[in-house]
């Protein structure tokens, strides 16, 4: 048999060879010392390159010094403005389920996009990226071929598990932050959001309507079926990821009013789920998160929003507190909202009279 070419070896090691080819490559490598050596070398290249790329990760943002960025700031405005459109829809995405079926007639990418993809494939000079190359990244590690394979595998596994563990808090917190940022951002977005709401949900999304709402993953204290309504489609439910209802509820300032459920959502977390319930507690939005104890909500997850957006969101948000406890059911619960911890304890007692 012909010797294995380098591309085939890498495809094999990457698990991308069809079964028949893989078996034939294995057979050959077992009997050909030259190819066995090439496979070993390829393993080294794969692991070492993975390590080298990892060294690029700890790059700080805003690496250009302040004095230079003041001279000519990066073109951020257009993008951040555009991002607000995403923000508005993300809020809706958390607060409401959007009924929409895919249109089979649009099942392929647009012509323009295909053309872009092709033109992108052409080799191009990479001068701009080379320019930024000298910006020093932090925390690199020297590549060592001997230990690289294991390290690379561990990193992959770690990364895979991290990506698999995206908790409900991510989306809800993101939505919450957006909601806050949304409040004092452009009027244009306010114009667009209600329109979308009108299309997608009969009542306002709590995150938008509430303003101060804090949708986070929470447990329903007294399980009750989330009112799915007409807007829920089987397609969305099949995702097994997000099942959300949104009911715009007028805030009540009546001192004796019971906390009312504004919305409830569930996000899969392994075999269990994280349930978020938003309450209107006499005019204040409070979120209740119920999760299996194995799920760590405090795990830092990068939101993806740039620091300026996050800082602004924090600055405009009312002071929030939270309390967390575990109960006999083996689940951990967190109450969070713009009230003191004492008030939150009071609310906890109110909500969990029957199920301590």
């Amino acid at each position, binding site marked *: 048999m012909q010797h294995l070419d380098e591309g085939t070896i890498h495809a094999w090691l990457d698990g991308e060879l069809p079964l028949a080819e893989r078996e034939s490559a294995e057979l050959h490598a077992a009997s050909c010392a030259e190819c066995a050596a090439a496979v070993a070398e390829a393993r080294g*290249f794969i692991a070492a390159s993975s390590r080298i790329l990892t060294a690029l990760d700890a790059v700080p943002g805003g690496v*250009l010094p302040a004095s230079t960025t003041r*001279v000519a700031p990066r073109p951020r405005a257009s993008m*951040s403005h555009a*991002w607000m459109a995403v923000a508005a829809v993300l809020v809706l995405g958390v607060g409401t389920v959007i009924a929409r079926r895919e249109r089979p007639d649009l099942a392929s990418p647009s012509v323009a996009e295909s053309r872009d993809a092709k033109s992108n494939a052409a080799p191009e000079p990479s001068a701009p990226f080379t320019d930024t190359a000298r910006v020093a990244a932090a925390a690199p590690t020297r590549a060592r071929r001997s230990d690289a394979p294991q390290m690379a595998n561990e990193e992959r596994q770690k990364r895979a598990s991290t990506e698999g563990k995206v908790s409900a808090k991510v989306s809800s917190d993101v939505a919450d932050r957006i909601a806050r940022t949304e409040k004092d951002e452009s009027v244009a977005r306010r114009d667009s959001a209600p329109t979308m709401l009108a299309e997608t949900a009969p009542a306002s999304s709590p995150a938008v309507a509430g303003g101060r709402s804090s949708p986070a993953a929470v447990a329903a204290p007294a399980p009750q079926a989330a009112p799915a309504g007409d807007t829920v489609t089987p397609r969305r439910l099949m995702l097994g990821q997000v099942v959300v209802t949104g009911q715009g509820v007028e805030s009540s300032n009546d001192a004796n009013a019971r906390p009312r459920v504004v919305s409830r959502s569930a996000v899969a977390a392994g075999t269990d789920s994280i349930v978020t319930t938003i309450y209107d507690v006499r005019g204040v939005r409070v979120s209740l998160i119920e999760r299996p104890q194995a799920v760590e909500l405090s795990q830092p997850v990068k939101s993806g929003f740039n620091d300026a957006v996050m800082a602004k969101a924090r600055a405009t948000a009312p002071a929030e507190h939270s309390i967390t406890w575990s109960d006999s059911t083996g689940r951990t619960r967190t109450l969070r909202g713009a009230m003191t911890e004492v008030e939150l304890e009071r609310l906890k007692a109110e909500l969990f009279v029957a199920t301590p």
Partner: protein
Amino acid sequence: MHDVDRLFRAYNEMLVRYLTRRLGDRDWAEEVAQETFVRALRQETMTNERAWLFTVANNLVRDEARKDSRRRKHLTLLFEEERERVAEPEESSMERAQDAAMARAAVDALAERDRLALLMREEGLDYSEIATALGLSHGSVGTTLARARRRLVEQYERLQQEQQRREGNAAS
């Protein structure tokens, strides 16, 4: 419209990491990722979400790079000047910074297509997705990655040796 919330949660982290590795600037990477999700809002359907997102992100980087290349070069010059004025950092961070700079230089020395294929593979994209995003045939992805990995490692080792030689000269 896609359920962008789900897309965001599924792909933002890897997209930002990919872009950060590619661009060397996390802020810029996040902006491009954000814009990519904005584009996803307007997209009716995607046959392969991950390949679509990476393709769009690649195009955005390319477009912005063209637009701003002159300004960026100017800023880089200013940055270089600024760096020369800044006091030497402590030794350990110096060493780390050197390693990172070598990694960056080695990555940038790759041909654009090789670099993108490698970075996308590191984010777990399979050969079909890489082929789609880069307009390659499926069969050539293995060859592209093999070349990219070999060159990256060789270039990095070359830079390491140069560095060690310089350190040796300085010591003697």
